[in-house]
């Protein structure tokens, strides 16, 4: 009986969690053994327990809290601007063919430039700080938002658009009522990708600019301190945790908002 239901063969929710946790435990155990047995130099590659303990300790450190908050602020500001600018720009490029053809060459020229390469240039113009950081985040995070909006629009069902047109809705109304909601799941995926890129840019800008506040600053400055490896790695753990939390929250939001999308693409036989 259960063979008819493919879901029944998949691992249960707790089963998947358990397997994930087992993988993590093995990794931690391996680093623990490497670090403690002396196979690798303990000061340059501290065992996982030391790193995690330090990372937990940092949570209570007011200086580190300031750094963490500063990175989150720059990340959020940059991402917000990228979304607020990228979505309408994408709608314009994807929705108005004339604008699309005019802007394409510029976009195709700018897109391949790695945003990290712009850090020195923007730093030179705007100096170190949240302005440089956010500018670079906006630049990097704009692309996934913009391109997913454009491709999402191309994927909108023409029948749905024509239906509203025949009911007398104008171009703008069709865009608002059909194209935008239909493209929304793609745009949301773009925003999730952009959120990850934004975090990368936030931390790299901080590391490269070298002073100010942020997780990247903490990591950069820890390099020259005592217990440098442990601090660097503990800072990195925080950057990773931040990325993990952001991703989890956005995935959850997408599932909740776009239930219809999953039901439609998965439910069709």
């Amino acid at each position, binding site marked *: 009986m259960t063979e008819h239901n493919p879901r029944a063969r998949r691992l249960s929710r707790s089963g998947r969690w358990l397997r994930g946790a087992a993988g993590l435990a093995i990794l931690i155990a391996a680093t623990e053994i490497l670090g403690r047995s002396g196979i690798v130099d303990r000061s340059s590659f501290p065992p996982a327990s030391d790193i995690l303990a330090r990372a937990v300790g940092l949570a209570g450190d007011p200086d580190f809290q300031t750094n963490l908050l500063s990175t989150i602020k720059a990340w959020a500001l940059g991402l917000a601007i990228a979304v607020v600018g990228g979505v309408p720009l994408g709608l314009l490029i994807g929705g108005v063919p004339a604008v699309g053809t005019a802007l394409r060459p510029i976009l195709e020229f700018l897109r391949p430039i790695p945003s990290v390469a712009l850090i020195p240039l923007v730093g030179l113009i705007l100096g170190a700080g949240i302005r440089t950081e956010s500018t670079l985040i906006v630049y990097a995070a704009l692309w996934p938002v913009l391109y997913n909006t454009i491709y999402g629009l191309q994927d909108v*069902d023409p*029948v*749905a658009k*024509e*239906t*509203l*047109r*025949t*009911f*007398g*809705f104008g171009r703008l109304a069709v865009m608002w*009522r*059909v194209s935008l*909601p*239909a493209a*929304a799941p793609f745009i949301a995926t773009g925003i999730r990708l952009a959120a990850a890129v934004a975090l990368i840019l936030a931390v790299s800008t901080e590391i490269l600019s070298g002073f100010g506040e942020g997780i990247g600053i903490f990591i950069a400055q820890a390099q020259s301190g005592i217990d440098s490896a442990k601090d660097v790695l503990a800072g990195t753990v925080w950057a990773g945790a931040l990325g993990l939390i952001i991703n989890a929250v956005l995935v959850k939001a997408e599932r909740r908002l*776009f239930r*219809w*999308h999953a*039901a*439609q693409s998965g*439910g*069709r036989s």
Partner: protein
Amino acid sequence: MLLIEKVGHYYSDHMALEDVNLEIAQGELVSIVGPSGCGKSTLLRCIAGLVRPSQGQISLNGKEITDVPDNLAVVFQDYSRSLLPWLTVRDNVALPLRRRGGSKAARRAAAVDALEAVGLANAAHKYPWQLSGGMQQRVSIARALAYQPALLLMDEPFGSVDAQTREDLEDLVLRVRKRGMTILLVTHDIDESVYVGDRVIVLGRAPGRVVADLAVGLPTARDQITTRELPEFVHMRAEVGRLVRGNGQTFNPGPPFSS
């Protein structure tokens, strides 16, 4: 009400319609039948204002159609693509009513009324993808009904549902026509064209042109069993069938690959 004069349409590589002339009166239910690829849908799209015909003109109540006319609704074959999956059934039906103004509550009430008329009052809060194909097409019909268009166009509306559902939906069309709107139904199903229509327009093979314009002599009250055994129905479906197949008639388009 609707006047089609010398309408022809060609796409870049082929002629879809040629010299189509038709006049349709207020309140008529007209079936347009023809073999697949004869330009039926193109004709419907021209009337809906979605396509501008290359030749001739179409006018609605004396006004030439250059854009989507007011007071028109279209039921497409592809119900799953025509309904918006992120809106509930009720909100799908209520959406076009924005064009009519009125409060949100009034629009929703009108939507529920229309859903009642198609027998789906208790599906109002579901999403289209939670319904069967036949039910989804009922929702599309309810959406058109709520809008109360003067002209309702249906493009192969029952082409993607099973036979039983198809009969139910045909009867639904016969019921809703009592509301006084003019209905144009495009189909490739010969029986359906006769069963539903007051009048059957037969389009010939591409490029489509009117091969015959037949009045259906069946009583207004019809049902799936008895109407289909009436001699008039049997005779008429044979006649339409011959016309659609392109034999047993004076007009001969010739072998398809001669030129």
